[in-house]
C-alpha cells in the first residue's frame, strides 16, 4: 500500500486511527450507571469547559452589570424612588385605615354592649373655624334623626352635646368649650358638681368644697342629672387640685381625646338614660330609663343632686336647649350649704 511516504502523515494517521477506535470503544461501553461511555467521556470532557465558561461568563456578566451597564441606573433609581414614595404613601394610608378600623371596631363594640340604647355613629367632618369656640361638625343631621341636645360620646368618654342640627350635618359643642357643662360627680366620693369647659384642653370642676376629699387621678363621671348623659359615663381624670375659698379649683383631663375626634356616637334619645351595671371593661353601659323623668329624679343620687340648688337648671327635665349659653352654675355659698354629706 504505497502512497503515504511521509513519516509525519503516518503519525497523524496513527493518531486518527487510534482515536477512532477509542470512540468506537466509547460507543459500545456502558458504565454502571447504564450510560454509554461516550456520554460519560463527553460529559467529563466538556463539563470542565462548561464550568469554566460559566464561571467566566458569570464574571463578565457581573462586571458588565456593575460597571458598564449603568446607563439606565440613574433612570431606574429615579423610578424606584418614585415607587418608593408611592409605596410609603400607601403604607401611611393603610396604617391610617388600620387605625380607623380599630376606632370603628371600638365604636362597634361599644354599640353592641349597649344595644338597648339608641345610638348612631357619626364621622367628624369639620371643627370650629376659630379658637373662640370648641365645636365639631358631624356628617349626620336631622335626616338621621339627630336633634338638638342629644349627647355625643365616644367609648372613652363624654364629648359634648348637639347644639345645631341641619339636614345632613350637625354641630356639637365640646366639653372644652367655655360655655359647655355637664352634670358630673367624683368617681369615689360621689360628690356631685358640674364640670365645664374653660376654653382650654382641661376641664374645670368648680363647686367642690374644701372639706371634700379629692385625689389627683380620681375619675370623674357623669351624674346623669343633666338629663342628657346617663350616669357614670367617664368624663375625665383629675390632674390638679387647688384649694380655694370656699371651693377647690379642680382641673380635669378629658377621657375622650377631644382634640382629635374622628368618629363619635350620638345618643339618639332625649329621654333620661339610666346606667345599668358596668361592663367588663369597666366602661359603663347605659339604657333608656324605663321610669318617668320625675321618678328618676327621686332616686337617691337624684335626690342628692336635686337637693343641690341650681341642679335642676343644670340638668333640666327637658333636654337643655342648644346652648351657646351654659346652664347656670349655682351660687357657691348655696351649693356649699346644701351639698349633701
Amino acid at each position, binding site marked *: 500500500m504505497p502512497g503515504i511516504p511521509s513519516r509525519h502523515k503516518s503519525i497523524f494517521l*496513527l493518531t486518527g486511527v*487510534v482515536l477512532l477506535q*477509542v470512540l*468506537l*470503544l466509547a460507543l459500545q*461501553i456502558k458504565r454502571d450507571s447504564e450510560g454509554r*461511555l461516550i456520554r460519560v467521556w463527553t460529559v467529563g470532557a466538556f463539563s470542565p469547559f462548561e464550568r469554566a465558561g460559566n464561571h467566566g461568563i458569570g464574571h463578565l456578566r457581573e462586571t458588565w452589570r456593575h460597571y458598564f451597564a449603568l446607563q439606565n441606573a440613574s433612570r431606574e433609581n429615579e423610578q424606584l424612588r418614585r415607587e418608593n414614595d408611592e409605596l410609603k404613601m400607601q403604607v401611611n394610608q393603610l396604617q391610617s385605615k388600620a387605625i380607623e378600623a380599630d376606632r370603628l371596631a371600638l365604636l362597634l363594640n361599644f354599640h353592641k354592649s349597649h344595644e338597648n340604647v339608641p345610638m348612631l355613629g357619626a364621622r367628624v367632618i369639620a371643627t370650629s373655624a376659630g379658637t373662640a369656640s370648641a365645636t365639631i361638625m358631624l356628617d349626620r343631621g336631622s335626616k338621621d334623626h339627630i336633634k338638638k341636645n342629644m349627647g355625643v360620646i365616644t367609648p372613652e368618654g363624654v364629648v359634648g352635646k348637639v347644639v345645631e342640627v341641619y339636614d345632613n350635618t350637625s354641630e356639637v359643642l365640646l366639653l372644652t368649650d367655655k360655655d359647655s357643662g355637664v352634670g358630673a360627680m367624683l368617681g369615689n366620693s360621689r360628690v356631685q358638681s358640674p364640670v365645664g369647659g374653660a376654653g382650654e384642653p382641661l376641664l374645670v370642676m368648680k363647686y367642690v368644697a374644701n372639706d371634700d376629699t379629692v385625689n389627683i387621678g380620681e375619675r370623674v363621671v357623669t351624674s346623669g342629672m343633666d338629663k342628657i348623659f346617663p350616669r357614670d359615663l367617664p368624663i375625665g381624670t383629675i390632674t390638679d387640685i387647688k384649694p380655694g375659698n370656699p371651693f377647690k379649683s379642680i382641673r380635669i383631663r378629658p377621657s375622650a381625646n377631644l382634640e382629635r375626634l374622628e368618629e363619635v356616637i350620638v345618643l339618639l334619645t332625649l329621654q333620661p338614660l339610666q346606667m345599668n351595671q358596668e361592663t367588663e371593661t369597666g366602661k359603663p353601659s347605659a339604657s333608656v330609663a324605663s321610669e318617668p323623668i320625675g321618678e328618676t329624679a327621686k332616686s337617691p343620687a337624684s335626690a342628692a343632686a336635686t337637693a343641690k340648688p341650681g341642679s335642676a337648671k343644670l340638668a333640666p327635665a327637658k333636654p337643655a336647649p342648644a346652648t351657646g349659653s351654659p346652664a347656670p352654675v349655682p351660687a357657691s355659698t348655696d351649693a356649699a350649704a346644701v351639698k349633701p354629706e
Partner: protein
Amino acid sequence: MNDAFDIRNMESHIEVHKFRGGAIVGATLLALMFQAFVPVYFAKAAMIDLPLLITIYFGLSRRNPSTGLLLGMVIGLLQDSLSGPTVPLGLYGIAKTVIGYLASSIGARLDTEHPAARFALTIIFFGLHQGIVLLTRRILLAQSSVWFTMHLAAAAVVNAIVAVFLFALLDHLRKS
C-alpha cells in the same frame, strides 16, 4: 514489483518486501481462525497471539508505518469481533494499530531478518501489546487488570519462539 528496494536512502540497504497476492489476507485470516478455534481443543494454545505475530511480521517486513498501522487496526478489530461480546471493538484494535505502526517504523531502521532480532522484538512488542491492552482496560474501560504475571512472561517467551518459526515460514510468501 518483485524486486526489493531501498526505502529511506540507498546507503541503509534495508529492503521493503513484497508478498504474493493474497498472502497478507490469507495469513491474517488463518491466524484469526487459529486463534478462534484451536484453543477450543488445546487450551494452552490460547497464550499464542497469532494475530499479533502476523501484525509484527508484516509491519517489520513492509516497513511502511501507514500500512503497518492500518493492517494492525484491521487485524485487531477482527480479533475483537471474534472475541465475544465482552471484548469491545477497539480493545485489540488500538493495541495492534500501535504495534503495527511501531513494527513498521522499527523495521525501516533495523535489520529484522535475524531470528534473534525477531525473537527479541516479538518479546518487546508482546509486552507493549499487553501494556496497551491493560491501559485501555484500566483507563478507557475502567476494568481492573494485573500488569504482570508469570503467565504473561511465559506467553511472551512462547510467542517469541513461535514468532521465530512463523516468521521464517512467512518469509516464503515473499516475492523473490
